[in-house]
């Protein structure tokens, strides 16, 4: 066995000597410019049309998105009504499938907290069929009683028992802590009082009272398609409303401890305020955030996962709403090592705040930004998502691509300043786990201001249904 090991080692050593060194990483490649044509559909101020021509593309995509955020804020539509509408449009898309799928057109639909979306993808030659499929979903009548009864029963069952899912409990707790006013309105996600006419009412308000964006991506000329799209969607003339995604960050570090008896691992989320979409500090913070938590090679993953085995992954996101932004970090850690993990997170965030990213980290983050979603270089649904994100903020369609130039201009000093400013805001910590574990761990890690919630309080804002 020892002789075999020596032979193997020798083979490896001789292999090492024979191979040339790795080629150096090439300089970051700029994104392909996104050529977007913008127009308004119809004669009466219909939806904005953004068309991206991709010569030679086999597939085409058409979608319409209605911004529902402002409707909920104004109390015109309740959260449960939007949930029901999304489900009904999804069912409508499904029932249309036998007629559309033979042409290769797949229609999908759904509503979330921010928007209702109906879209279709299929061969370029079937783009008009795809647009008609989308229009057909939007023109749905009220749902039939049989479907409604089954859906409502399932929705009530799910709503009643949401508090049993640790993942749902944690997400609701994070939302309630970070958007308390919005969460108070979402208490109306109770589906028990819904009726079929509520779905029709919600649909008419969404279609009439919200701004809409129509996105088309494919090998298609605007001139030949625009009349068809105007006929299908030109009647949706709603106006834009204010983006209500305004968080309420804490004035001082604050911890929310949601009790989940016996839970192991513990769900950990950290949030803090960050630059908004149009802020001059956005490019610098984007790169710092990427260095901190962008992928398995980011700093938090290297320290907490690779070096210390504290977690399977640290995931992060930086959201830039129009008025304000925020950064969020999520991970799961073993209950037995929760204190260690909280201290390690704090230590790494403070180190980044004091020292900023290294030159290598900054360059890697810059390269990553040029290859990420902002570059809008991937699949048609990724391009559509990037266009929607810009439009949602009231920004020009190529905003994200234009911002890539700003990333190139961020110096190491800029990044250090961005880290110092971006990590100065008080943080919110949300832990979902056994309170016998989370409370002492939070205190040991220096979180002196802690509020305890039961699961039902996190989900419903009060007692269990």
């Amino acid at each position, binding site marked *: 066995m020892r002789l075999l090991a020596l032979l*193997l080692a020798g*083979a*490896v050593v001789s*292999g*090492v000597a*024979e*191979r040339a060194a*790795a*080629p*150096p*990483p*090439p*300089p*970051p*490649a700029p*994104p*392909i410019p996104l050529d977007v044509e913008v127009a308004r559909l119809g004669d009466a101020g219909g939806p904005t049309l953004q068309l991206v021509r991709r*010569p030679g*593309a*086999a597939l085409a995509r058409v979608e319409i998105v209605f911004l529902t955020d402002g409707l909920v804020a104004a109390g015109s539509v309740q959260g449960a009504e939007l949930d029901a509408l999304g489900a009904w449009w999804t*069912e409508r898309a499904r029932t249309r*499938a*036998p007629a*559309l*799928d*033979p*042409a*290769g057109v*797949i229609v999908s639909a759904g509503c979330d907290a921010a928007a209702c979306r109906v879209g279709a*993808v*299929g*061969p370029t030659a079937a783009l008009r069929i795809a647009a008609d499929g989308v229009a057909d979903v939007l023109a749905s009548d009220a749902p039939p009683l049989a*479907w409604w009864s089954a859906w409502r*029963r*399932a929705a009530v069952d*799910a709503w*009643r*028992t949401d508090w*049993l899912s*640790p993942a749902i409990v944690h997400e609701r707790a994070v939302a309630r802590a970070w958007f308390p006013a919005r969460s108070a309105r979402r208490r109306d996600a109770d589906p028990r009082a819904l009726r079929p006419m509520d779905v029709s009412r919600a649909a008419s308000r969404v279609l009439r009272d919200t701004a809409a964006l129509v996105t088309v991506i494919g090998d298609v000329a605007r001139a030949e398609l625009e009349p068809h799209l105007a006929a299908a969607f030109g009647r949706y003339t709603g106006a834009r409303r204010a983006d209500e995604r305004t968080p309420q960050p804490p004035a001082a570090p604050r911890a929310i401890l949601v009790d989940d008896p016996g839970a192991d*691992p513990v769900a950990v989320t950290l949030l803090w305020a960050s630059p908004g979409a149009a802020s001059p500090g956005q490019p610098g913070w984007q790169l710092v955030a990427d260095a901190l938590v962008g*992928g*398995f*090679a980011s700093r938090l993953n290297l320290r907490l996962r*690779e070096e210390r*085995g504290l*977690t*399977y992954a640290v995931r992060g996101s930086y959201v830039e709403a129009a008025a304000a932004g925020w950064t969020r970090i999520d991970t*799961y850690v073993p209950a037995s090592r929760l204190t260690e993990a909280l201290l390690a997170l704090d230590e790494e965030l403070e180190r980044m705040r004091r020292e900023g990213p290294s030159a*290598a980290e900054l*360059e890697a983050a810059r*390269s*990553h930004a040029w*290859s990420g979603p902002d570059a809008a*270089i*991937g*699949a*048609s*649904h*990724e391009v559509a998502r990037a266009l929607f994100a810009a439009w949602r903020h009231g920004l020009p369609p190529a905003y994200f691509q234009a911002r890539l130039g700003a990333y190139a201009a961020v110096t190491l000093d800029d990044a250090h300043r961005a880290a110092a400013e971006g990590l100065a805001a008080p943080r919110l910590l949300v832990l979902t786990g056994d309170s016998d574990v989370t409370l002492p761990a939070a205190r040991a890690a220096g979180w002196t201001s802690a509020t305890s919630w039961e699961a039902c309080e996190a989900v419903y804002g009060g007692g269990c249904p």
Partner: protein
Amino acid sequence: MIVVLLSLAAAETMHRALPNGARVAASEVAGARDVALVVHVACGSADDPPDRRGLAHLVEHVAYTGSAHAPGGAGDAWIRAAGGETSAWTTADALVFAARAPREALPLLAYVESDRLGWPTPTGTSLAAQQAVVERERALRGAEAVLAAALGRLVHGPDHPYARSVLGERSGVARATVDELRRFTARCFRPDRLRVLVTGPPPVAALLEEVATRFAELPASPREEPPPLAWAPQPANTDGAPARERGEGPRSGRWWLPLAVYPPHLRVAWALPESATRIPLEAAAAVLGARLEGRGARVGWFLGPRGGRLELRVEKPGPVPVARLRAEAAALAVRGPSAAELAAWRGSARTRDLVRLEVPLDHAELRMSCWVEDGRPDCVEGRWAAREALSADEVRDAARRFLAWTDAVTLFAGPRRRLGGAALSEGP
């Protein structure tokens, strides 16, 4: 070396067999800026030694801690610096390593990925760190992993590789040594077990050449074959009466797995034999899925070199629609799909493929999976033709053969028994 040029409507594809036994292919993604590189190693958790379940998955993790010419994770840092990213996963049948980056970084991708396989350097430090990470992963997947393992044991039999979790067993992972990792990689990271696929913008010949150059540097596979697997194939469920009489093979009927999982999970599953053919099965699964979608059920299935499994999945609170699932499966086996359903499947399946083919990494994953199964990298386009030629009778026959309710395993996982059936503890 054999260079094969296949020019098709969807994508130009070339492939080549290298002198060291590795197989390399390249496929075009028109208009893409990036490239993707996927390496398939024909060695997975089915090759775990019996007392080291989870070794293959551990090897996957340790492979990212460095190699001889890219030590300490330098390779992944270089790829990230070039604007790319890497990932990997383990199945019962394979280890798969994937990377994506701008086109200009392809020589670097090929270097790093070939070095990872040709010159692995596991150490005690890297092993210990990854053992901890794997345990974090096990804790995260928790109930889902228990459910999958229980279902696998019921459907395939307790000794079948598809009955085991890729994550393995805590004791097996904890006791693994560096020597065992080295032996496993020596046995599995052989060029003759590698398929390498690169996708990206044309010219395809350049993509192929840059990747082949690097993978040709891997030392040739030793003459002798590694020792065969200890596991022997089980009889297919439809022919498996002797197996069931021996208490081996699928355990059809109803089972309850007491599990603190929300929402409760229902699984109705059938074992698929190694002889099952893909296209009729794909059609049957798609038609059944479309019929059940409105009732909150989804269909999932896989087919590998050791057989496969088809599952109906329901994950929601409230009544459990077993009778409806049974009725739909029976209807498909008796009458087959309608012409409209078959046409809908053909159209939507092709569009779904095209959606994946738009993006280099998705394209590479799709083409690699069918290359492994069908034996040639232009298989995607071949499947389109096979779908067009498939008849409703063939779909009906597949449903009749593979979806007999008497062969189904019905497993309900939740805190309370809902369907009757025997209770499972750690397994049947």
